[in-house]
C-alpha cells in the first residue's frame, strides 16, 4: 500500500492500531515530496529532519497511548504561518530569510495534537493573488496539469494535498485563497467564520478578512483539522470565545430538510464557463435527491463586492506591510544613501509587482480627500453585504455557488491582466467581507479533465451544517477520490 495516499482519518486509525508507524508514514510522504516536488514546486522549505524527529516522538506517544488526534500526521503549512525557527518567507524576497522566534497559535495547537509538519508551502507573495504565480520564489504547478496554475494564494497547500505530498495543509483565505485553489486542485478547503481560528502568527495581508483554514483530501479530514485549530485565543482580540462543536461527529450525512439557497445574482454572473455551470447543476440534482429544499435568495449588493473588497483589502495591506522597511529584519537594500533611499530601495526591490500594486491602491484609498469616497464607502458596502447574508440565512441554511468562474488556467495566461484576476474572485470574496464560513468540495471535472469545486457558504459559526452538507455530497460522488495522474510526467 502506498502510505502517502491515505487520508488523515484512515492513517490515524492505522496508527492507533499500530498497523503502521508515524515514521513510516512521514518517510513515505517525504519520499513523495522528493520524487514529485521537482515537478510541482509546492514546497519552499522541506523540514525533513524535524519531521522525522516529531514522527518518532509521535510513535512514542502512541505507544504510551497518549497520542493526540493528529499524532504522526504529516502536514504542510502555508509559508505565511509563523513557525518557530523555521523560515517563514511569505513567498517574498522581503522575508526570504526570516526565521520567526515564535509559533503561530495554530502551530501550537497542531504541535499539541501531535501533528508532523513536513514543510512550508508556496503561495502568492503575501497571499496576494489567485494563481501562486505572484510568488517571489517560484510558480507552483497544478498536479492535474503541470502547465496550469494550482490557484491561489494557497496554491502550494492545494497542490501538496492533491499530489499526496502531505496528508493535509493549512492555508489562509482573504478573498478565496483557500477555496479557489482547493477547487482548482480537486481537494476540500474550508474558510472558517472570521474569529473562529486565531490569527496570531498569521502574517497579515488584510486583517479584517484573513482567516486560517484547512485544505484536505476529504471532508472528514477537513473537519478533523478544523477541530484541531479552532478556538478563542487571548493573543488575538478578534478571535471569538464560543464553544467549538465536534465537527467530525456532526458528519452524519443526514441533510433531509436542509434549505439550500441559490443567489439569483450568481446565476446572472457573466463569464462562468460551461463546464462549471454543468458541474454545479449536477450538484444541485444530487442535493435534490437527498430531500434538500432549494430556495432562490437574493444578495442585492453582490455587484459592489469586488469593488469594496479591492479597496478594503489593499487599504489594510498598505498599512500591514509598512513594517517591511529594512530597519529591523528581513531584506534591506544596501544601495543608496540615507534613510529615504533605504526605504525606497528596500521596498522597491523587496516586494513583487502585485504587492506593490496593492500597496499603491490601498495607500490611495486611505489618503486625505479620498478616504470618504473609497475606504469609508467600501466599509459601508461591507455592512450592506453582511446584512444581505443575514437576510439570506433567514430563508436558507446554506448557500450554494460556484467557487471560481472557470477551472485552472494556463500559467502566464492572465498574468498581465490583474483586473480579470480580481473579477474571478467574485464568488468567494463576499464570504470574507461578511465574515461567514465557506468551503469548496470537488464536484466534477471539465472536458479537459480539470477539477471543479462546489462552494457552500454557511451562517456565522455554523461550520457544522456546512461540513455535513459537503459530507453528504462527497458520499454520493467520488470526485474527491480521483487523483491526478502524475506518472507520465514523472517518466518524462
Amino acid at each position, binding site marked *: 500500500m502506498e502510505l502517502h495516499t491515505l487520508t488523515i482519518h484512515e492513517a490515524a486509525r492505522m496508527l492507533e492500531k499500530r498497523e503502521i508507524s508515524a515514521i513510516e508514514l512521514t518517510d513515505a510522504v517525504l519520499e513523495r515530496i522528493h520524487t514529485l516536488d521537482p515537478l510541482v514546486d509546492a514546497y519552499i522549505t522541506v523540514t525533513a529532519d524535524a519531521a522525522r524527529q516529531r514522527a518518532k516522538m509521535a510513535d512514542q506517544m502512541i505507544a504510551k497511548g497518549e497520542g493526540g488526534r493528529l499524532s504522526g500526521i504529516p502536514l504542510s503549512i502555508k509559508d*505565511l*504561518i*509563523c513557525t518557530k525557527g523555521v523560515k*517563514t518567507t*511569505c513567498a517574498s524576497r522581503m*522575508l526570504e530569510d*526570516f526565521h*520567526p*522566534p*515564535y509559533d*503561530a497559535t495554530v502551530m501550537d495547537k497542531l504541535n499539541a495534537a501531535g501533528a508532523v509538519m513536513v514543510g512550508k508551502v508556496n503561495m502568492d507573495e503575501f497571499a496576494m493573488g489567485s494563481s501562486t504565480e505572484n510568488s517571489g520564489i517560484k510558480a507552483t504547478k497544478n498536479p492535474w496539469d503541470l502547465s496550469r496554475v494550482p490557484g491561489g494564494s494557497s496554491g502550494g497547500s492545494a497542490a501538496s494535498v492533491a499530489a499526496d505530498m502531505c496528508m493535509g495543509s493549512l492555508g489562509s483565505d482573504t478573498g478565496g485563497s483557500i477555496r479557489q485553489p482547493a477547487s482548482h486542485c480537486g481537494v476540500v478547503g474550508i474558510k472558517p467564520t472570521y474569529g473562529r481560528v486565531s*490569527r*496570531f*502568527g*498569521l*502574517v*497579515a495581508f*488584510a*486583517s*479584517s478578512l484573513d482567516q486560517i483554514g484547512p485544505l484536505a483530501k476529504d471532508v472528514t479530514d477537513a473537519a478533523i483539522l478544523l477541530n484541531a485549530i479552532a478556538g478563542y485565543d*487571548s*493573543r*488575538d*482580540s*478578534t478571535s471569538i470565545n464560543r464553544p467549538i462543536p465536534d465537527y467530525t461527529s456532526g458528519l452524519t450525512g443526514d441533510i433531509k430538510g436542509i434549505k439550500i439557497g441559490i443567489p439569483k445574482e450568481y446565476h446572472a454572473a457573466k463569464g462562468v464557463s460551461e463546464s462549471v455551470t454543468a458541474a454545479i447543476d449536477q450538484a444541485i440534482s444530487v442535493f435534490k435527491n437527498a430531500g434538500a429544499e432549494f430556495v432562490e435568495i437574493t444578495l442585492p449588493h453582490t455587484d459592489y463586492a469586488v469593488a469594496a473588497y479591492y479597496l478594503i483589502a489593499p*487599504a*489594510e495591506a*498598505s*498599512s500591514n*506591510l*509598512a*513594517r517591511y*522597511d529594512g*530597519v*529591523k*529584519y528581513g531584506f534591506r537594500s544596501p544601495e543608496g544613501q540615507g*534613510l529615504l533611499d533605504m*526605504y525606497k530601495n528596500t521596498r522597491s526591490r523587496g516586494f513583487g509587482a502585485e504587492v506593490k500594486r496593492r500597496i499603491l491602491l490601498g*495607500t490611495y484609498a*486611505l*489618503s*486625505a480627500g479620498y*478616504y470618504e469616497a473609497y*475606504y469609508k464607502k467600501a466599509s459601508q458596502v461591507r455592512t450592506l453585504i453582511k446584512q444581505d447574508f443575514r437576510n439570506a440565512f433567514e430563508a436558507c441554511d446554506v448557500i450554494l455557488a460556484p467557487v471560481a468562474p472557470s477551472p485552472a488556467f494556463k500559467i502566464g495566461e492572465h498574468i498581465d491582466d490583474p483586473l480579470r484576476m480580481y473579477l474571478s474572485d467574485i464568488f468567494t470574496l463576499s464570504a470574507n467581507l461578511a465574515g461567514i464560513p465557506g468551503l469548496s468540495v470537488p464536484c466534477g471535472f471539465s472536458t479537459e479533465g480539470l477539477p471543479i469545486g462546489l462552494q457552500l457558504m454557511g451562517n456565522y459559526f455554523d461550520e457544522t451544517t456546512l461540513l455535513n452538507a459537503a459530507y453528504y455530497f462527497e458520499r454520493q460522488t467520488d470526485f474527491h477520490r480521483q487523483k491526478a495522474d502524475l506518472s507520465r510526467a514523472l517518466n518524462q
Partner: protein
Amino acid sequence: MEFAPVIGLEVHAQLKTRTKIFCSCSTRFGAPPNTHVCPVCLGMPGVLPVLNQAVVEYAMRMALATDCRIAPESRFARKNYFYPDLPKGYQISQYELPIAEHGQVNITRPDGTRKKIGITRIHMEEDAGKLIHDPDRSISMVDYNRTGVPLIEIVSEPDIESPEEAGAYLRQLRAVLRYLDISDGNMEEGSFRCDANVSVRPKESEQLGTRTELKNLNSFKFVEKALAYEINRQIRVISENGEVIQETRLWDMDKNRTFSMRGKEEAHDYRYFPDPDLVPLKIDEDWIARIQADLPELPDQRKDRFMAQFELPAYDADILTASRELADYFEACLRQVENPKLVSNWVMGNLLGLLNAEGKTIEETPISAEEMAELLKLVNDEVISGKIAKTVFDEMVASGKSPKAIVEEQGLVQVTDASAIEAVVDAVIDRCPNEVASYKAGKKKLLGFFVGQVMKETQGKANPQMVNQILKEKLG
C-alpha cells in the same frame, strides 16, 4: 491695533502602568537598550496587539477627573507614517472615536481668579521608540524599549489667552495626573510633553488668525517663553502687513526663538483608519461607576477642603495643594501639630525656600514630615520661640540631627519662668536710664530696643510675649 493670543495645547502624558499598552513588556525607564521588547512591540510579522485594561482604566480616571464624557464605544485607529522608531510603520492611536470628550479643568490665573479651560478630547495611544545618533560612526541606532509605552493625549480647547495661563494649565494637568497616580508628569524626562497651537487675533475681532504649531517645548519655562516669542512674532508679522503662515515651528532653546520646521504642504497625510486588529472598546456605566468610586481627592477638591477645614487663605491652599506630595506632607505635619497656619507658614516659607534654593522637589526633602512636625510641636508648645526654631531648622538641615536633640544639646529651651524674665528686665531697666526716660516721655518705639536687650541677655530664649508684657508693666 491690540492683539489677543489664542492658544490650544496638546499634552502627551506617559501612563505609569506596569506593562505596555499592547504587550506585556515592562514600561520601566532606563533599562539597557532593546531589553524591554518582544515580537509584538517590535512589530514582527504576524503578531497582534492586545489592549492592556489598566491603560483604559488610567485614561478613564483622567477623563473623570477632567469632567469628560466617556464614550460607550471608542475605537483604535492606525496613524500611518514611516520612521525607524516606529516598528510597524504605524502608530496605534485613537482618531474618530476617542475614549473621552468635552471636559474641562480649572486654572488659577496669576491674579488669583479662577478660569475654566475646556478639554476637547482625551485619547489613548502607544509611544514610539528612540533614535540614537552616533556622529562618530555616522550611524543611527534605535532603542525600542519605549515603543508601546502607553500615552494619553489631552487636547485643550483654544481657551488659553496668555503664556502664563498656558503654564498654569499645564501645571494643573500635571497635578491632576499625579494626584491620580497615573503619570509621573515629568517634562524634562519626557513623560509629559506639550505641543502648542497659537494664533493672534485683533482684540475687537472674533475672527481667528492663522495658527502655527510649536514643538520641542520640553519644560514649563520653554512653553511660556516659546509662546511669548511666537505671539510677538505673529503680531510683528501682521503689523508689518505680512501674513502668518500655517506651519510647524520648533523652539530653539539656545537662541530663544522659534523657527520653521515644515509648512502645510509638507504636512504628513497619516491615512488614519480603524485598526482591524482591535475590536471596538466598550465601556458601560458600571465600569465608569467603579472607576469614579475609586478616584482620589483631586487638587481642586483638596484646595477647597484646606480652605474650609483649616481656614487657610486661598493663596496658601493653592500652593500647598499644587502637588499631591506637598499636600500630603502638610497634612502629615498637621496630624502632630494642630496649628494649620503655623504649619502652613513653615512649609511654604522655610521648607519650600530651602527646596527652591537647592533645586529639589518635595520628594527629595532633607527634612521629613515627622521631623518638621517635631520641630513645630516645640514651637506650638512654646518650648522654643519661632526665632530659635529657625536656628534649629538650619541645624537640622546641616547636621541631620533631630530638633529635640539640637534644642537639648544647645540649651535652647525657652525661658517662660516669669520671675527669671523679670530679673533680666529689671537689670536692663537699671542699665539704661536714658532710654527709660525717653520711653516715658512718649517715645514708645523704644519698646523694641528693650525687647532686644532682654533677648540678647537670654540668648533669645525668653518667651517674647512674656518679655513684651513684663516690659510694658515695668515701664508703665
